[in-house]
Every structure is written in C-alpha cells, then in structure tokens.
C-alpha cells in the first residue's frame, strides 16, 4: 500500500469508506443518503481510476466525493433530515458502562443536530477539516475555493456551532 502507486478500487473502499460515509452522514444526518453517496462514489472512483494520474490522491478523492454529494442532494431535492442516533450507537464498543454509552450518544446527537443547523457551505468545510481531517489546502482543492475562503468558512462554522451547543463543555 505504497503512497506513490494508484490505489485500487478495493483499496479506496477499505481505506476511505468509513470516512466517506461519515462525511456524508455528518453533512446530511441521514444514513440512507450517506449509504447512497458511498455507493455512488465508489462507482465514480472505479471509473475515474482508469484515468487517474498519481498525484494528490486525497485532493482528487474528496473533490469527486463532494461533487457526488452535491449531485445526490440536487437529484433528491430534499433538505437534510434529522439525525438518527442509531448510527452513532453502532460504533460504540461493549466495554464502556451504560452511563458512558448514553452520555456519548447524547453528546454525538447534540453535536450532529447543531451541525445540521449550520449553513451547508460552512458545515462542509468544518466536516472536511474536523471529521475527515483534511488540511486547508486540501479542502481548498476539494471545494474548488481559495484557502482564504476555507479559513473564513471554518471559523464562521465553528463559531455558529459553538453558539448552538447548549450543554457545558
């Protein structure tokens, strides 16, 4: 799995599947939409890899991820729905105590609900930065906007998000 070779479609599915799904879920709050995005994206990756030349793979991947997401949203022409906390519960292990589990789920729900109230253009940058873990430069490439715009959107998104989170941190 060297960095300088073109990954296979299976590599992409294994390595980025969870992040792509999380990206879509955090943006939409809807597990069905997130699943649709992963499937659509993997199809695009399979087609796109034939013409992909080694370079910034992450930039390329997240650019087509975002485009697939926007296309999907346009196609469905519906607003993001409310979050379904069942998805967050699915990732919790058996070891934490019931209280910890409930607290963690509640926290995730609150943050997810707050995220969905942040305007999409800000939310998108916040999620790419803090969920996916991209640099400002990579986000700039993914959303096709200047780094200064990315910086501004992340800041404004976080600021609004903090105002929406009512619980003490």
């Amino acid at each position: 799995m060297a960095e300088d070779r073109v990954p296979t479609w299976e590599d992409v599915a294994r390595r980025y599947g969870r992040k792509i799904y999380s990206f879509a879920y955090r943006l939409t709050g809807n597990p069905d939409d997130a699943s649709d995005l992963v499937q659509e994206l993997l199809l695009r990756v399979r087609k796109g890899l034939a013409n992909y030349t080694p370079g910034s793979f992450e930039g390329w991947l997240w650019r087509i991820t975002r485009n697939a997401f926007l296309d999907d949203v346009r196609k469905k022409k519906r607003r993001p729905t409310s979050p379904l906390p069942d998805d967050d519960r699915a990732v919790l292990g058996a070891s934490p105590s019931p209280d910890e589990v409930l607290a963690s789920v509640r926290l995730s729900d609150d943050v997810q609900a707050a995220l969905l109230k942040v305007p999409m253009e800000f939310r998108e940058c916040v999620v790419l930065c803090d969920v996916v873990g991209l640099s400002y430069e990579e986000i700039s490439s993914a959303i096709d906007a200047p780094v200064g715009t990315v910086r501004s959107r992340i800041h404004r998104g976080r600021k609004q998000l903090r105002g929406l989170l009512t619980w003490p941190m």
Partner: protein
Amino acid sequence: MADVTQPQPIDHVTATGVDNACDIGELMSAYLDGELREGELDQVVAHLSDCLSCIAEFHDLKEARTAVRMLPILQVPDRVMPAAHYGPELSAFLDGELTVDEQTMIVQHLESCTECLLELQDLDAARTAVRALPGVEPPAPLLPRLPVRSQRTSMRRIAVAAAGFIGAAFIAFNMMTSAPEETPVDLDQFADRHTVRQSVEGNFTGVPVIAPRSSP
C-alpha cells in the same frame, strides 16, 4: 460628544454569534488548526495575551472544534461496502511492515471479516512452519572455492608480514646490543691511500711534495 482622539473601548461580544471587534477571529481558528501563515503567529499570540474577550472566543472555538472531532467515524453498513478482502497486506501485517494507520485499518476490518481472519490464521501458520525449519549446512563440494582461496592468501600475507617484522626486530636488536667489531688496520693500504690524497690536495705535510713539471 465622544472624544474621537481617544481610543474607544472595544465593544467585545463573546462567541455566541456576533463578530468580535478585534477581527482576529479567522486567525484564531487557523491557529487552532496549525494553518497560520508566516508572521501571523506572533500577531495572534500577542493579541491573546491581553484581550480577555478574544481569549474567551478562542476557548469557544476550541470547544466547537473538539466537539466535532470527537464525533465517531461511523461504520459503513455491510450492504454498502463491496466485499473487499485483504491479500498481500495480511502477510505484511504479520511481519510488522505496515504503517500504524494501515495496521489499524486491518484490525478494524478483521473485527467483522471472518474470511480475512481465517486467511490471516493460515498465513500465520505457514509463516511459523517455515520459520521453525532447522538450518541446513550445504554439502562441502557445493561450497564456493573463492572464499577459501582468498582466506589462504590472506593467511599467507599475514605470515609473510609477521616474518618480516620479526626479522627486522631481530636485526635491530642485534645492532643495539652487539659491540662494533675492531677491524685490523692494513698499513700498506693506508699508505697508498695517503699518497694518492697528498698528490691531489698538495698540502699534506710530512710527505715530500712532487713539484709540478716546469714548462720549457
């Protein structure tokens, strides 16, 4: 009427929605993310050292950032993910040749993929079996000759060098310890040498000088 020549108190509003009048907001988020440009770090650090409202906003931004970062990375539903299994990566995993991220990815995959887990067990068994094989000495005729010959040559060189050293040491020892030999003086030879020298230099006293032949 307000005195415009004096600095006006800044109407700071903390982070719940209104922009901070200090206008370093974007820099604070970039600071949190390690994304400041050259020269901006000093500006942010200096400002945060004496602006209480910006310090409060900084902590608000940090909390919002932490909240999103703590969201779990979700498991993709099985029906969505292709049945992608690991191959050569499993051997590299056994040999500790993967990065930490790759190892984590495989461990997570193994939690839900029985097929890859069985494959890993098979590979581990094969690897253990091969490693347990005893070492075998190759038959003598198959041993390459070159290393042996070169070894002999080296030994010979060492022996020659050692002998030379011992010989030189012996000679030096003899020179230091033995007294110079007294050789008997050959008077006839001495007299001949003396005559020749006198004839050349011409000033050897005690010996008759041969006058130069006068010209006619």
